[in-house]
Structures are given as structure tokens and as C-alpha cells.
């Protein structure tokens, strides 16, 4: 069966520090991968998605970047965190070409102080 791992579960980082959140998927090949964020009082917002190794699409301009160095690995990064980067980050995956569902990781609660 497929599983998705996302870590760490919680993270407190000072303003200006770098960020690296990692997500890996097991039990499937060539998944579509996604990073979502939920800021306080707002719905989950799609940040990035990837359809293959090295292919990243950004949905919103921001202080973050994403990379996909391997088929089932998706990394969310920042060189210098801002207070506004605080939120709940979720990684997700899906497969198939039409009308599929997404499966989510457990999320990372990031607090920038």
C-alpha cells in the first residue's frame, strides 16, 4: 500500500533562518506531488506541484521554493524565513490522469519567531 511521510511534525525557526521540509511517498511510481499551506484563518492553499523529477510549478509568488530530486521525494525550502511563512504545511500525492483524489501527509506546523 502507498504511504506518505512528512517531517518534521513541528518546527520553530527564527526569522531569517533557512527551511527544509521533506516529503517522501512509498508504494507508487511517478506520482504528482503537491505542497499546500494553511495560514491562520484561511483554507489550504496550493503552493507548488510537480508532475515529475525536476519539474516544479509554482502557484503563488512567495518566499519559498520546491524541488523534486527523486521520483518520490518532494522538498520545500526557504533561504530566509519570514514571519508570514508561519503555518501548517501539507504534502500530498496523486496518480492517474483524470479525476483522481489526493492523499495527504500528516503535516508540519511551522512557527517563525
Amino acid at each position, binding site marked *: 500500500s502507498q504511504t506518505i511521510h512528512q517531517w518534521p511534525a513541528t518546527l520553530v525557526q527564527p526569522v531569517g533562518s533557512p527551511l527544509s521540509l521533506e516529503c517522501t511517498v512509498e508504494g507508487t511510481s511517478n506520482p504528482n506531488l503537491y505542497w499546500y499551506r494553511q495560514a491562520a484563518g484561511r483554507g489550504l492553499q496550493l503552493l507548488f506541484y510537480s508532475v515529475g523529477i525536476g519539474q516544479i510549478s509554482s502557484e503563488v509568488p512567495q518566499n519559498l521554493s520546491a524541488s523534486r530530486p527523486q521520483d518520490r521525494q518532494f522538498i520545500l525550502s526557504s533561504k530566509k524565513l519570514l514571519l508570514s511563512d508561519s503555518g501548517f504545511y501539507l504534502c500530498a500525492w496523486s496518480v492517474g490522469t483524470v479525476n483522481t483524489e489526493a492523499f*495527504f501527509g500528516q503535516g508540519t506546523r511551522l512557527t517563525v519567531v
Partner: protein
Amino acid sequence: AQSVSQHNHHVILSEAASLELGCNYSYGGTVNLFWYVQYPGQHLQLLLKYFSGDPLVKGIKGFEAEFIKSKFSFNLRKPSVQWSDTAEYFCAVNQANTGFQKLVFGTGTRLLVSP
């Protein structure tokens, strides 16, 4: 741009009460609709989904939702809630017939069921 509105941010019910959570979306094309649930300490998981066909969709744990195209709504219902239904519920929508889950989510509804 697509948007999803969940009008109830917090709902408190007693066990055995009936539940209806509202969800409205704005998008002129064909959509897929989802309800996700996040139980305390657990990951976001799919409760039910609508792609096409019967607009009344049945999901896990006795939940159902009805797609009313004319009202752009996809309300979630359960006739009798249990304490274990305490969770946060998210409505989501994406453009149909694509392979990508570019989901647009509502802000969520926190449901507390008291025993």
C-alpha cells in the same frame, strides 16, 4: 478564480444530533468536489468525493453529501453524529477532467460533538 466558502467555522453538537455543514464554490466549469476530514492528531483523509453521476454521494462513517449544481453547493450531512466525529472538515473543489489535484479548499469547520 475558484473559491470555496464554508460558512460554519465552529459547530458544537450533542451525540445523536443531525449534522449539516455548508459548502459553496464559485467556478463556472465542470468540477470535482471533495470533503476531507482531519481527526485530532491524524492526517487529512478523504471522506467522500463527487466526480459525476448521482449527485447524492455516500462516504465513509455514515456521511453523505449532495451536489446541487444550480446552487453551486456540496453540503455534508450525517443523520446522527457520534463523539468520534469530532474533527475538522474541509470542503474542496478542483477543475474536472485533469490529472492534477489543484484543489481549492474552504477554511474548514471544526466540529465538536459532546457525549
